[in-house]
């Protein structure tokens, strides 16, 4: 469970969210909805501590942060990428399952992988450790139907075991039972 108290988020001179007070109980999916540029990403970044809120308090547990920026098509391999991200969260890559099927491409450099596959590698980071909170920015971007299904079941098993997911998305229909928060655009 975590708590937002009177949280106000601004970006530049634009107000993105005003006085948000909200408690999120475990097992909940919170969707951030709204048009482009309405502040979903800014709000998510504020939750992650990557953007200083204009005012208010937030009490956030450990989390996974998956941004909307796709992995660049460099000469790096998924194996190196995953090892690096495991090291950043202070562990080594001890992932036991491979729902996205990335084990088959571990040594194929990113510049030879499609956008969808690079997205799958990025989402595989979610399996490297088990923090209670997931902050996901457009996680379904570039995924095919099967990848989408995997993502949904992954999020479901996370929330079923008491985890919380906050997702900025343009596809709210994927989570019909989720709590939502609407962003209306620059106020």
């Amino acid at each position: 469970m975590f708590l937002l108290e009177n949280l106000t988020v601004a970006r530049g001179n634009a107000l993105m969210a005003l006085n948000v007070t909200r408690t999120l109980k475990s097992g909940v999916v919170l969707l951030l909805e709204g048009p482009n540029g309405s502040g979903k990403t800014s709000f998510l970044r504020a939750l992650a501590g990557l953007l200083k809120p204009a005012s208010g308090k937030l009490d956030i547990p450990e989390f996974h942060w998956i941004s909307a920026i796709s992995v660049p098509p460099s000469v790096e391999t998924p194996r190196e990428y995953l090892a690096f991200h495991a090291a950043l969260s202070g562990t080594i890559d001890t992932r036991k399952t491979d729902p996205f099927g990335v084990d088959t491409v571990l040594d194929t450099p990113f510049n030879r992988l499609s956008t969808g596959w690079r997205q799958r590698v990025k989402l595989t980071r979610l399996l490297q450790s088990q923090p209670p909170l997931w902050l996901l920015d457009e996680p379904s971007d570039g995924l095919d139907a099967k990848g989408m299904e995997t993502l949904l079941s992954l999020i479901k098993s996370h929330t079923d075991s008491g985890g919380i997911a906050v997702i900025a998305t343009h596809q709210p229909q994927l989570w019909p039972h989720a709590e939502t928060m609407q962003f209306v655009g620059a106020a």
Partner: protein
Amino acid sequence: MSGVIFTRILSRMTRGRGLQMQALLFFVLALAAFVFGIGADPEQLETLMPGLVWAILVLAGLLGLPDLLEADAADGTLDDLLLSKISLPSVMAMKMAAHAAATTLPAALAALICTSAMSPDAFKYLPQLATGLALGAISFSAVGLLGAALTLGSRRAGTLLAVIVLPLGVPPLIFGAGAASAPLLGVSPVMPLSLLAAFTVAAITLAPFAAAAIVRMKVTTP
């Protein structure tokens, strides 16, 4: 764990671009350009050599700076580094070390080889020369890290970097070139070398903290 992170920082800087090779090549080409400009008179070259070598080393330090932090900012890696378990100053120290390993130290190596090849007396002073160049290389990377942090997210980072880094690099340039030309003037290089060492130590201790504060402010300020 930090080993994995440092390896990735270094390989992202160099791989596919051969930055070390570029730095070596830049050094040799720039030196040749200066010699073509000055003329081939060996006596004149010998007196000018220490200064030339150090001036080119400062310029070589500018290589690799535009991408040092900007590439990470562009693909979101910088956010991940900010959120990671290791502290941001340590990350910045790794960046500084990676820049030294990829550009300034290779350029310093080229400087050492060129000086030894072109000056008959250089072998006598090889230890002092090598120490000075290594210290200088590291301090130019420290100053470069500050420049990269200050210009992160700016519109015309390239020129701006040179304008910021070159004045800040004046003290190591003066002490380093002073130490290198000391034998020619018949004085001991110990004093300029120790001044250079002092500057280097101060720079590599302070620069990562300053760069971390600047980067954190840039990323998190709304």
